[in-house]
């Protein structure tokens, strides 16, 4: 029993190193038939990738489905067993500062009366797992890895320290999650979010809505056993503007003066051409 505990401990200690050195790790290990992990068996690791390296947001962009797929190396799951491992995939967008405002009734009119700035809120956050994450691991583990809406890292800007009570900050925090969920930017797929294909292959389909903010998305894949993370892997996909959408956006933000003049010329030209066209029409 003591030997087993030592073995488990080594697994936990080795796992982060395996994560850091995943490029060196073998792509696919030989299938193992061992039932009980022994002290000499190599630790199980997870590797994952995304169906695309980069996605283009063009004028016709209406959202996209991306697939995160991967495999468990050195799986020690007994043959035929299910639920020996749990896999959680977290797809997270770039963190941005976000202002949250709260309205209250001021003389019959609803006015923004209080606000808070969170210095970094993931622009997008999708979570897919083999089971609901609360069943997979305890809150301490989930908090450490920022898994699940309740554990998204969101820190209020320093100026609010002391001025707002904890429950007020929690109210603002919940509002961010609720509103982001409403915009389909925070997505949860607890049931069959990650499905195993055979013994060690798994895949997960994650929907990106049309309003997903551009920038890099990071997919963190966690391998769980007995409520603990045994291995993790990081993959990236980048959303970038393309086509007319990119040209217009860059024009507007990089050369706002010229863009303004262009808008004036365009509007004037359209107005004149249209009126000239309709004047020639009978009636």
């Amino acid at each position: 029993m003591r030997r087993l505990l030592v073995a488990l401990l080594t697994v936990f200690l080795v796992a982060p190193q395996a994560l850091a050195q995943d490029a060196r790790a073998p792509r696919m290990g030989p299938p193992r038939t061992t039932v009980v992990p022994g002290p000499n068996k190599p630790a199980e690791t997870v590797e994952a990738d995304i169906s695309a390296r980069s996605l283009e947001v063009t004028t016709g962009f209406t959202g996209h489905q991306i697939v995160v797929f991967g495999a468990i190396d050195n799986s020690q799951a007994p043959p035929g067993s299910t639920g020996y491992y749990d896999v959680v995939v977290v797809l997270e967008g770039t963190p941005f500062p976000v202002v949250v405002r709260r309205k209250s009734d001021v003389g019959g009119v609803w006015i923004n009366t209080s606000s808070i700035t969170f210095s970094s809120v993931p622009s997008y956050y999708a979570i897919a797992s083999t089971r609901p994450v609360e069943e997979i691991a305890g809150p301490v583990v989930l908090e450490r890895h920022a898994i699940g809406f309740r554990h998204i890292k969101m820190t209020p800007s320093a100026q609010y320290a002391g001025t707002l009570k904890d429950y007020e900050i929690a109210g603002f925090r919940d509002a961010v999650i609720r509103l982001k969920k409403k915009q389909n930017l925070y997505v949860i797929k607890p049931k069959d979010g990650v499905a195993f294909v055979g013994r060690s292959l798994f895949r997960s389909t994650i929907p990106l809505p049309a309003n997903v903010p551009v920038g890099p998305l990071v997919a963190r894949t966690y391998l769980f056993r007995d409520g603990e993370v045994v291995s993790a892997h990081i993959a990236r996909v980048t959303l970038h503007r393309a086509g007319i959408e990119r040209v217009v956006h860059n024009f507007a933000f990089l050369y706002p003066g010229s863009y303004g003049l262009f808008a004036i010329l365009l509007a004037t030209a359209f107005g004149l051409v249209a009126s000239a066209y309709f004047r020639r029409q009978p009636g």
Partner: protein
Amino acid sequence: MNIYLPIAEMSVNAALLLGMGWAVGFLSGMFGVGGGFLLTPLLIFMGVPTAVAVGTGSMQILASSVSGAVAQYRRRNVDVKMGAVLVAGGVIGSVIGVQLMKILREMGQFELFVSLCYVTFLGAVGALMMIESVGSIRKNKSGQASPRKTGQHSWVHGLPFKMRFHRSKLYISAVPPALIGAFVGFMAAIMGVGGGFVMVPAMIYLLRVPTSVVIGTSLFQIVFVMAVTTYLQALQNKAVDVVLALLLIVGGVIGAQLGAAAGARLKGEQLRFMLAALVLLVCLRIGWDLMIKPADLYSIGPTIGGGS
């Protein structure tokens, strides 16, 4: 067909936008108004960020008023000197409005301010128009011609910096037209409207500009002030979406032609009555949204001026 708007950063149905532009164009062609007071609230209801709705609105108004202004100029219905004074005031008003908009956005009170402006102006103008049109419909029924007061002097004529406006046959101070222009320019920047519905009555009743040159001169002012406002909105607030504007312009131009034809078959008082009803409806709708408890008390947005 869905289209991704590059500045509003949202995906919307292109046909819906064309249809909306068409409907607003139809109504504005029928009533002879700019339609900004309809279009901007509609865009906001659709979910376009308020700032982008206002900024893009000014570009759309520029396109829809430029042809009218050229036509009026050809018919010599523009008092260029009066127009220049109105434009000078309008530019100052617009600069102030765009600056104020930036400050209000940072404070998180921009949406509220826009709504309050809409409720106030639409409520006042709609009520006045309603009273006037009902009055003239009654008079027409009883067979009386409405007497038009001309040549009366008011406090306006006692102010300094008098200028001679030949086309308007007026010798008045430049201060009132400049103030009217400034006020309209300010509204244009904050509310995304042309402001014709304030400027035309103000010119007729306060300045006593002859009716023949009022429309042309007001369009002249709107074109220049809208051009300046579009430029400032693009420069300072990055709130002009050309893709959105183009769709609205195309729909609007077609709608305006049909609307003008439909409007020609209706009597002036009836048109004014319908327009007043429409204005009051928009006012009530916006006022209602301010009064009822919002579905969610919280709202989120990016921090303005801090990157994004």
